[in-house]
């Protein structure tokens, strides 16, 4: 439960000093503010887009945390980052919307019956993959989520997870190997 009146400056100063608990409390305290800012943006009508934008801001706060000077107020610092990231996110969303057409989900069919792929198990495949990822050890699971599902670069994933680039490379390699074994081996 977040503190009802958090002292952002103290929490951020503690986070900069390496206090992880204070850092987490800070994130929890700013989350409702960030969600409100995202909800107000006219281009972010989809809840999933808004949550993506909020996650973008959280990553930006993490990346830019050294730029905060505890002698200055915290909220202008936060708002500057939040508005910048949300504007970027909305621009990307609008560009993508202009380029893409929503998939009507009509599978292609061919005259030759053998050429038609059975799509009925498509969602089951996704669920099977999700379940297989869930059985991985925590380090490998995180590496797969950050690098493969979130498509982060090694550097970003390293910043987000606190793991070194080398550890992430090893973890994702092992994870893919065991996923292949689980999914293909089971088939």
């Amino acid at each position, binding site marked *: 439960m977040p503190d009802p009146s958090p002292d952002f400056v103290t929490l951020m100063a503690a986070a*900069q000093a*390496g206090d992880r608990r204070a850092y987490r409390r800070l994130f929890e305290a700013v989350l409702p503010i960030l969600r409100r800012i995202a909800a107000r943006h006219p281009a972010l009508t989809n809840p999933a887009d808004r949550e993506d934008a*909020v996650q973008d801001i*959280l*990553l930006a706060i993490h990346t830019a945390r050294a730029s905060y000077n505890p002698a200055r107020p915290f909220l202008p610092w936060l708002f500057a980052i939040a508005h910048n990231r949300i504007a970027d996110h909305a621009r990307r*969303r609008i560009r993508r919307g202009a380029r893409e057409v929503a998939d009507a989900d009509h599978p292609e069919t061919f005259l030759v019956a053998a050429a038609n792929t059975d799509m009925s198990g498509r969602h089951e495949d996704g669920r099977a993959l999700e379940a297989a990822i869930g059985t991985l050890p925590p380090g490998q699971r995180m590496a797969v989520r950050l690098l493969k599902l979130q498509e982060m670069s090694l550097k970003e994933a390293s*910043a987000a997870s606190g793991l070194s680039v080398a550890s992430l490379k090893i973890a994702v390699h092992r994870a893919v190997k065991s996923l292949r074994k689980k999914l293909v081996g089971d088939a």
Partner: protein
Amino acid sequence: MDTDTLVRRLAEGGSPVRPRASPTSRALLWVAIASPFVAATALWHGFERDIAMVFAEPRFLAEQCAALATALAAATAAFATGTPGFPRAYRFLPLPALALWLFTLAAACSEDLADLGPAWFRMGVDAGCLPAMAAAGLAPAVVMLVMIRGAVPLAPRLTLFYAALAPAALVSFALQFFHHGDVTLMAVVWHFGLVWLVAPLMALLGRLVIRWPRSAPG
């Protein structure tokens, strides 16, 4: 990844960081590091003017004060525009000094145009000062580039524009000591023109040099 998981992961990766000094302190530090290199270049090139005499000229003093003020204000603005939460007024901080500098330059041009007549327009290749300019500008530019790398990309083009203007103004300041005093069209084109070309070019690279890490796709 859901947001709660991301929060947990980010908090777990929250290694200690040292908060950056204020933009003004960083600008002063930049001047303190860059100035000895600029001074050494001026000494190495040798003075073409009688230093005692030029210091008595109000025009020279005004030009030099304006150039130095532009360098300092541009450096401060470069650091401030790369720091979230600073008032937007910092974006315009270098403008008064810049306007004063351009005014002193225009005044010097018109004065010399009246003195020299048609000779003022004589163009040619004045490459004598170029190596000295490049040498004088190299260290301030490299130091600035290193210091600006941690900037937050809120206005990357403006940040890079000011980050390039600051060393350019500092080089112009130094140039006045090792270049003859006439401000002819040739001097304007070869010296100030080149200096002024650098800042807009650097501004175009803004988003390449200073950028956020690629975010998670939506």
